[in-house]
């Protein structure tokens, strides 16, 4: 009893000077529409919670981390292995970044589907778009601070993309790298971005975002048929909170609190179970036995860059992001009024589904990168026995050519080998002998030409082997006119070589 009194007096002493208690209480107890106290409304606060976790763990990591090209990798090793629980703090920060991007994206989808970006919350949405961009900026710069092989070559990819900007490209590259190559200065400036510049922007944007949520009110649960009109919306919203409102604290906040606790627990569980992310090999550009891959949230981009036609790549890289950002910024102005409910916005729902499926597919594809040659398939994956049974000496010679010329880096046989080119298990059914010869020697359809690297004897052997690659019950493809032509030409002998060219597709 006595303690409580003293506590109260101390509180009063502070509040007479700070005068914050009343405005804080007002904000906490402001009325929100009753039906917004929903589990759908917790993702924004979840993103904020993870951001706070990132702030704390980031500061803790900075106690040990050395932002120097020569020392960074070693300091990460020391965090992982020497410093007590350094691995755990790194793991929290790394998994926190994955969760934060997920939370931000889910929050954005929810806001979009609930029509919360419409009048009068346009600016809240726009700041939200900036928040998404700075979050992605944090993700990329954070990946660079984990200064390993992936970070090094990831920077190379970033520089290659930046260099494609017309005229200014080379200057942007030097500005980005802090010098002529990826080196110590590059890491230092990404450290400054990740630790000072982007977090500063992020904190500023978060404050504005929250301020507007408080000033404009939480978006009411969208009801099909209740249309947003600029002239009447604010009065209607006011009416709603008055008639069917409840104080944010404690009526709605308990769900945010529970979800915040749950998400922190999930990050911690991932951190304990999966451990810290990387670092992979040392950032030594003379180690070229590496296949760099970006972190999870940029995998879709990695896939996109492999699958776009070469001529479309530069325009897509330079113009695409600008169009997407402009589109997102203009969204609240293009559809600032009208229906909010996803039940009456089929195009909105389809758009979200399409984007989700696209990103999901690209991310999934990037997981096994079928477009990349398997660099060791030719030396690591043997030709399965069944393809060599009852084969002639020439065909076996061809199998050797097939293996030694690294055909399997791109072509699989018996489900082993690269997936860049088509699988060759039954290639003889698809291509005739002439077509095989032409394809091997001239390439085409994204296959290099091997004319310079195969002697005629090697080509003959290789094609002899390829011709055996067809299912047992199915004959190899055959040029129907070939026998006739050969039979006809046999007595004369001379014109035979000219004929196959005419039968090419």
């Amino acid at each position, binding site marked *: 009893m006595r303690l409580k009194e003293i506590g109260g007096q101390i509180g009063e002493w502070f509040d007479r000077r700070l005068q914050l208690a009343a405005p804080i209480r007002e904000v906490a107890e402001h009325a929100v529409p009753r039906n917004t106290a929903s589990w759908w409304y917790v993702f924004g606060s979840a993103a904020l919670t993870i951001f706070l976790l990132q702030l704390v763990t980031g500061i803790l990591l900075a106690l040990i981390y050395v932002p120097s090209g*020569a020392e960074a990798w070693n300091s990460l090793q020391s965090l992982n292995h020497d410093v007590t629980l350094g691995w755990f703090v790194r793991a929290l920060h790394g998994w926190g970044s994955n969760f934060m991007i997920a939370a931000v994206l889910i929050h954005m989808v929810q806001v979009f589907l609930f029509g919360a970006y419409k009048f009068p919350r346009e600016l809240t949405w726009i700041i939200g778009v900036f928040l998404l961009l700075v979050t992605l900026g944090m993700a990329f710069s954070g990946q660079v601070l984990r200064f390993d092989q992936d970070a090094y*070559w990831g920077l190379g990819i970033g520089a*290659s993309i930046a260099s494609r900007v017309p005229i200014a490209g080379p200057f942007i590259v030097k500005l980005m790298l802090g010098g002529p190559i990826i080196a110590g200065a590059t890491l230092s400036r990404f450290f400054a971005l990740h630790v000072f510049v982007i977090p500063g922007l992020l904190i500023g944007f978060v404050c504005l975002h929250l301020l507007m949520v408080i000033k404009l009110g939480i978006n009411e649960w969208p009801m099909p048929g209740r249309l947003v009109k600029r002239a009447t919306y604010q009065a209607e919203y006011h009416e709603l909170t008055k008639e069917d409102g409840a104080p944010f604290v404690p009526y709605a906040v308990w769900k945010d609190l529970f979800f915040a606790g749950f998400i922190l627990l999930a990050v911690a569980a991932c951190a304990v179970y999966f451990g810290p992310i990387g670092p992979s090999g040392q950032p030594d550009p003379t180690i070229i036995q590496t296949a760099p891959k970006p972190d999870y949230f940029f995998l879709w981009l990695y896939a996109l860059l492999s699958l776009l036609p070469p001529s479309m790549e530069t325009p897509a890289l330079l113009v695409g992001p600008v169009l997407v950002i402009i589109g997102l910024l203009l969204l609240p102005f293009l559809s600032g009024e009208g229906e909010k409910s996803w039940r009456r916005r089929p195009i909105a729902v389809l758009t979200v589904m399409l984007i989700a499926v696209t990103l999901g597919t690209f991310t999934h594809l990037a997981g096994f990168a079928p477009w990349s040659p398997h660099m060791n398939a030719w030396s690591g994956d043997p030709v399965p026995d069944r393809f060599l049974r009852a084969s002639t000496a020439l065909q076996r010679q061809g199998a050797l050519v097939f293996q030694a010329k690294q055909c399997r880096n791109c072509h699989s046989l018996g489900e082993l080998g690269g997936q860049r080119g088509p699988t060759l298990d039954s290639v003889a059914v698809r291509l005739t002998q002439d077509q095989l010869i032409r394809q091997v020697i001239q390439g085409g359809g994204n296959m290099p030409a091997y004319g310079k690297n195969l002697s005629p004897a090697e080509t003959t052997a290789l094609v002899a082997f390829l011709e055996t690659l067809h299912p047992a019950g199915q004959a190899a493809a055959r040029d129907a006119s070939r026998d006739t032509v050969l039979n006809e030409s046999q007595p004369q002998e001379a014109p035979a070589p000219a004929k196959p060219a005419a039968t090419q597709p």
Partner: protein
Amino acid sequence: MSQEKSWQNSPPNSAQVAQEAAITRRGLLMKLGIAFNGLVALGLAVPIVRFVLSSITRGRANGYLSWVPLGPVDDFPEGETRLATFRNPFVTPTDGKTVDTACWVRHVAGDQFQVFAINCAHLGCPVRWFPQSGLFMCPCHGGAYYRDGSRASGPPERGLFTYPYKVENGVVTIQAGELPTPGASTAHRNSADSLVTIQAELTSATGPSTFGDCAAFKDCSAFLGKKPPCA
């Protein structure tokens, strides 16, 4: 002015307007204060902007490029392509291993070389040389190049970047110092049109049947279904 005023709660009376129109001592001092700060900011902005842009301007003034030795000609047997490493000429104390750079040296014949950057012309990943198939392959997005560096397949729009080279006193020397990127200066370009030359060679490809340089062919049957020894 009057339109902005109408936003405020109390409409301005004529006395206030008159007072604002006239130059007052306090108003003038405030404007002078702003102007003074503007001047100082401008003065500070010049060195700050120069500092920020120094990584660009330094390269333009002195140039990042210089000639770097790769090793004696004997290290690069004729007709072969070998990996060489060099230390980037522009070094700062915090660079660590990042200044060590790799490149592919192809000794064509005599004093004729080709020195390729390790960076794929698509997005800069490290390409690897496969002597058996005579291709450079990139592990990232599947770019492939022929032995002369020209594009073979995949997303790259051009051939590998080449460094200018010279052979001095039996030492292969290249001009290096900048990360080669697709948008960089045209000095590094290499755009041999491969398809035409192959077609030309095809018509005359009647030479003796040599089985390449892989040792596996010396003992065919022993290696079928196993790793070839020329890994």
